[in-house]
């Protein structure tokens, strides 16, 4: 399983980052996810990729319930912004990152997950429906609303890198 896990790790990590909005929280979530994946028996019919994303998402939902981090970040974008302490910001367009973070913070948790799985990971609607345990039609309609909301938020911000 090691090699398989290594292969999906970068995607899983970006997914964790998109859910948490903070690199350090993302790495904590990644660690918990990997721990869980290694300690549990993989469901017989489960594809590692889908199982891993489902585990990651469920852990994050549990974490949200416990901490209500996301609500805080959404209502206080500057708080989420303050969590980026990584050096690479200096070399990147901080404004661009800030705008995308702020736009993502306007989405609901469901919408953010859809954007992360489809737009970032390139998963099919069937795969996403399975991971999120919702009908395919729901994936399609929620995703369209999420994209429209992001386009609106980013369009208002105006500046592009």
């Amino acid at each position, binding site marked *: *399983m*090691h090699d398989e*896990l*290594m*292969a999906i*790790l*970068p*995607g899983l*990590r*970006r*997914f964790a*980052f*998109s859910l948490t909005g903070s*690199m350090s929280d*993302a*790495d904590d979530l*990644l*660690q918990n996810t*990997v*721990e869980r994946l*290694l300690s549990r028996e993989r469901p017989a019919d489960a594809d590692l990729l889908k199982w891993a994303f489902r585990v990651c998402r469920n852990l994050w939902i549990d974490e949200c319930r416990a901490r209500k981090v996301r609500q805080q970040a959404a209502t206080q974008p500057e708080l989420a912004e303050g969590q980026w302490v*990584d*050096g*690479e910001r200096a*070399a*990147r367009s901080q404004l*661009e*990152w800030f705008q*995308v*973070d702020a736009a*993502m913070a306007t989405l609901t948790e469901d919408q953010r997950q859809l*954007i*992360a799985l*489809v*737009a*970032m990971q*390139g998963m*099919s*609607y069937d795969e996403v429906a399975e991971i999120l345990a919702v009908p395919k039609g729901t994936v*399609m*309609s929620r*995703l*369209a*609303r999420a*994209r*429209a909301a*992001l*386009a609106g938020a*980013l*369009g208002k911000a105006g500046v*592009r*890198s």
Partner: protein
Amino acid sequence: MQINEEMLSAFLDGELPPAEMAAIRQQLQSDVALADRLAELAAVDERVRRRYAAIDERPLPESVKRLLSAERQGAKGHVVPLAPSSWRTRLQRPISYAVAAALVVGFGLGQMFDRTAPTEPSNWTVIAGALETAVSGERVPLSSGTQLLPRLVFINSSGEFCRQYQLQQTGEIHEQIACRRGSDPAHWQPVASVQVMGGVDADRYQLASGAQLLDAVLDQMIVGDLITPAQERRLRESNWSMAGD
């Protein structure tokens, strides 16, 4: 056909039935507003992808590496020595950081990881020759129309000098590691390679999962500190005969 946002979004993902995909493609040719809206939605995806790929540049947490390393040892029944993290620390210094960040491939293209020698023997003589004399960070054109960019020099657990470098040839990019063995002219032997594809615009690049695979190999191989530029110069001048100090 009336095309709503939901259809346009699904069109972007290639998730509509073939007839609807074709109908929208047709309409896009004449409907400027529709094409603009599609471009807007596609741009959103691209910006989100780029933003969250930024975490690739942050080293994988030691805790996660330990988990994976323990898993591998358990599975294969042998001990893989853990490399000190000093090379990574060094990579985070300004100049070397650019080296780490340069381990990129075009988004969405497949990577292949291959621990066997990926390079044709005839080319290898040329590459091995360049590895003997090339300076890390400086691109070297090779006679076969390929380019070599050495990145790092380190010592492996067998005490051999190894180099990590990028090999670029006709649309293909390989990130490879070779180690210097024996004293005959064949010196350098390929050890590992991550094959990636090139030809994507620079602003669309992002870190590849291949970089993580290479990280894992480097973690296993590197013993002690990376060789400094000054040490590397002395090594080249002495035909790699003295130990790094």
